[in-house]
């Protein structure tokens, strides 16, 4: 039995509404939308709407949802509207609650809010915004919760509130004790006060400290905490047959042999897929091999064909940044270099999947999802039932990286369950993962620049082509695409941060590809920064100046300029950056700023047997207040290694019209041998509030590696993944 502090009973409606509404306010926009050039007033207006729609955090203020639960063993259970996918959010939230409620962090437990038990974020978890967006609302909620408990404690003791003594979730007065749990179990109607004054930062016990992850022991012991580990009684297993060729359609299927296989429960034919259901996973896999399918394959897509489609000059054009005059093509002082990045897979280790049961017009779905609220809507729409009849139970995620913003498999599992009349567990095979990913789109970039007579850069232009990132994604309502005219996800990191340049511009060319491309950790940031920062480095070399002074001269003092300068200078200083190379080893530097957090890397590269080996990375990040500096460092390390993997190893291609490769190994990803043996992360606090952490450090890594290779070999590598031969 647990005491639910505020939702079981009706508190005073006025106060309660205020309480929830205050908690429900988001504080940051996902994208730096202010940097748009949009002369069209309609576009400007819609952009305002888009900003609201994609606000990072939106809790309901009208439904009887709950945030905190006080358990019988006197623990405070936070039902988190944000999911835990490795980024350490649960730990950060626990630190915030412990500090504002003045209890030991051991008293705090965090769980993923289900749609039936708590406030889920109607948008989702992503954009590196969980801590940044929840920091203030959660502090207010926790402080208010503490105040509510004190009011009730005073009532139960029959004394004035200021006479209470409290220690770690237990009140004391006149030799008697009252725990939070005892109080909560007595209260029938909560009084909700105005939000109390928040703790001064100098009194923080947990915020700003390197607290160990609260979920790590469960993870080290192998506890069953992921979507893949969930079950339901009397569950059957499904596997789904989908086309392997891009754009193929199901023509016909003969399931007669498959139906005779051991353990088969049912085979379901839909318009574009076939579900094979059996008593065990292995039986389902065996049976699917016996299904004879014929496909209509209208076209054999090739990598070359995709490259032709996706070129600067093709697709929808949008100028997203413009200052000064454009560079003239016939100006022989203009330097032009082209860059590219390949199609990339998410390759998160936990496959996508779900366990679902649809019965008597109600659906329950358990899964790893970044978008619990959106998953709920999609299941409700597909089954044509009310939203209230769909309960989505989110679990820990075995990696997110943007892949779990798309949860069509939840819908498919629910449909199969409805057809079979039993709970169904369905998850992707690894081949299915690689061929049905919502990939990081390939990109093409043309960089142009011009030095003035003193060797200082006077103009810089970034023209880039990308597939869908935000466009056609669940996070951006379709009617807005045409009006915005820009893919705001592909735009991440695409605008020129060197605001001191007299002329600079950024121009996007957008093309929708014949397969799904979407959100991938840091969106366009990695590829855009690779192009811009490699080019700037090349221009520094041409000008004969060192790459730090060259950048400092053009960063300017507006907007984030001073904060970008700080991380750049600090990285160079700490790493003892030098342009000198001995022919085998050398350094590279690059910087970017993303969602308000500037980050610079200095990498030390060694060329070993004609292979690029990243030996050391010095990372300087300004993410404002680091709620948990150790986990901020962990995010930097992870972002660096994932970005290194994308920069030196990974590439999806098309083979005979099929997306390929379809297995780890063949899809070459960094292993422990490829990771730098030294990663030095230094944090700079340029502002007092927490800012995004999980994606910004990915920005400069590719360019920093390329810049080091240039210093060692004299060769400018322009295509990801970078290879020496």
């Amino acid at each position, binding site marked *: 039995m647990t005491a639910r502090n505020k939702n079981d009973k009706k508190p005073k409606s006025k106060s309660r509404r205020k309480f929830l509404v205050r908690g429900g306010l988001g504080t940051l926009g996902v994208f730096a939308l202010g940097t748009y050039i949009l002369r069209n007033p309609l576009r400007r207006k819609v952009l305002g709407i888009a900003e609201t729609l994609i606000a990072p955090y939106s809790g309901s203020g009208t439904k009887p949802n709950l945030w905190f639960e006080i358990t019988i063993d006197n623990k405070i259970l936070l039902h988190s509207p944000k999911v835990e996918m490795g980024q350490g959010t649960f730990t950060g939230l626990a630190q915030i609650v412990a500090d504002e409620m003045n209890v030991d962090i051991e008293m705090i437990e965090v769980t993923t809010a289900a749609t039936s038990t708590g406030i889920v974020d109607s948008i989702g978890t992503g954009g590196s915004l969980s801590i940044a967006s929840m920091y203030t609302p959660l502090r207010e909620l926790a402080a208010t919760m503490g105040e509510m408990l004190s009011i009730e404690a005073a009532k139960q003791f029959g004394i004035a509130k200021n006479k209470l003594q409290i220690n770690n979730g237990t009140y004391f007065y006149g030799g008697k004790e009252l725990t939070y749990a005892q109080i909560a179990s007595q209260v029938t109607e909560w009084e909700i006060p105005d939000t109390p004054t928040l703790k001064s930062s100098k009194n923080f016990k947990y915020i700003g400290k390197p607290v160990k992850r609260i979920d790590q022991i469960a993870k080290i012991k*192998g*506890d069953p905490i992921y979507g893949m580990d969930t079950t339901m009684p009397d569950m059957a297993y499904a596997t789904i047959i989908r086309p392997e060729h891009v754009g193929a359609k199901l023509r016909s299927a003969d399931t007669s042999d498959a139906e005779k296989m051991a353990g088969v429960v049912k085979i379901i034919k839909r318009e574009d897929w076939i579900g094979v259901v059996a008593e065990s996973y292995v039986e389902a896999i065996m049976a699917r091999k016996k299904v004879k399918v014929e496909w209509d394959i209208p076209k054999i897509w090739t990598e070359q064909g995709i490259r032709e489609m996706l070129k600067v000059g093709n697709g929808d054009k949008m100028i997203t940044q413009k200052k000064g005059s454009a560079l003239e093509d016939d100006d022989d002082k203009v330097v032009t270099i082209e860059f590219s990045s390949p199609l990339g897979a998410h390759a998160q280790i936990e496959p996508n999947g779900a366990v679902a049961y649809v019965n008597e017009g109600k659906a329950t779905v358990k899964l790893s999802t970044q978008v619990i609220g959106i998953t709920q809507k999609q299941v409700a729409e597909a089954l044509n039932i009310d939203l209230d009849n769909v309960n989505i139970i989110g679990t820990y995620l075995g990696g997110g990286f943007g892949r779990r913003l798309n949860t069509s498999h939840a819908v498919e599992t629910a449909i199969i369950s409805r057809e079979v009349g039993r709970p169904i567990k369905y998850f992707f095979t690894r081949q299915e993962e690689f061929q049905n990913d919502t990939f990081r789109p390939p990109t093409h970039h043309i960089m142009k620049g011009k030095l003035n007579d003193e060797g200082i850069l006077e103009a810089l232009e970034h023209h880039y082509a990308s597939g869908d990132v935000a466009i056609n994604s669940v996070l951006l309502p379709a009617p807005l695409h045409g009006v915005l005219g820009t893919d705001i996800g592909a735009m991440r990191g695409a605008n020129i941060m060197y605001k001191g340049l007299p002329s600079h511009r950024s121009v996007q060319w957008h093309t929708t590809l014949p397969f799904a491309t979407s959100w991938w950790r840091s969106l366009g940031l990695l590829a855009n920064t690779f192009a811009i920062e490699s080019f700037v480095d090349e221009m520094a070399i041409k000008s004969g100046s060192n790459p730090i002074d060259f950048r400092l001269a053009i960063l300017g003092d507006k907007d984030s300029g001073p904060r970008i300068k700080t991380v750049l200078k600090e990285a160079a200083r700490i790493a003892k950056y030098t342009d000198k190379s001995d022919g085998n080893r050398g350094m590279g530097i690059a910087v970017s700023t993303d969602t308000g957090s500037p980050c610079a890397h200095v990498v030390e590269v060694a060329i070993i047997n004609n292979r690029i080996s990243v030996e050391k990375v010095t990372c300087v990040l300004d993410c404002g207040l680091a709620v948990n500096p150790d986990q901020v460092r962990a995010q930097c*390390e992870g972002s660096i290694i994932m970005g290194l993997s994308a920069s030196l190893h990974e590439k999806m291609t098309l083979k005979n019209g099929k997306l390929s490769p379809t297995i780890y190994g063949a899809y070459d990803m960094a292993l422990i041998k490829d990771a730098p043996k030294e990663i030095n992360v230094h944090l700079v606090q340029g502002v007092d509030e927490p800012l995004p952490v999980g994606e910004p450090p990915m920005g400069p890594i590719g360019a920093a590696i390329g810049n080091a290779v240039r210093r060692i070999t004299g060769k400018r590598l322009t295509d990801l993944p970078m290879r020496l031969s």
Partner: protein
Amino acid sequence: MKTSFTINGEVKSIDVDGKTPLLWAIRDDLDLKGTKFGCGKAACGACTIHVDGKQVRSCSFPVKYAEGKNITTIEGLSKGGQLHAVQQAWAEMVVPQCGYCQPGFIMATAALLNQIPKPTDQDIDDNILNVCRCGTYYRMRKAIHRAAEIYASK
């Protein structure tokens, strides 16, 4: 087909097709969910367990070969409530992020230390071939060296 083996110190018998990958017998028949499914083709290592003390990728190991063998999964690694040296080192270094691949890495590391109690960086590079998508490799290497120290002190 009936197959019997010792798993985490207990003798178990299961009745499944002998070709069934041991992973699914462990996860679905014995309900031990710590051993993870990642790829099904022995390419990622998320399903790493020990069979007679050696690391095995259980997604590609047929049940019939487990007959009479001594199997350890992540659930059996810690003894009497005490974390294994590798798990202790993992906790000290705060290695896990999403955590999904971690049991596989921990099992692979424990097997490595059985073979090479004080591995060099080269030993680690040559033997730890699992895949982690969060990029915890940097801390993992430190944790492997730390685990060797804890191991040696016992």
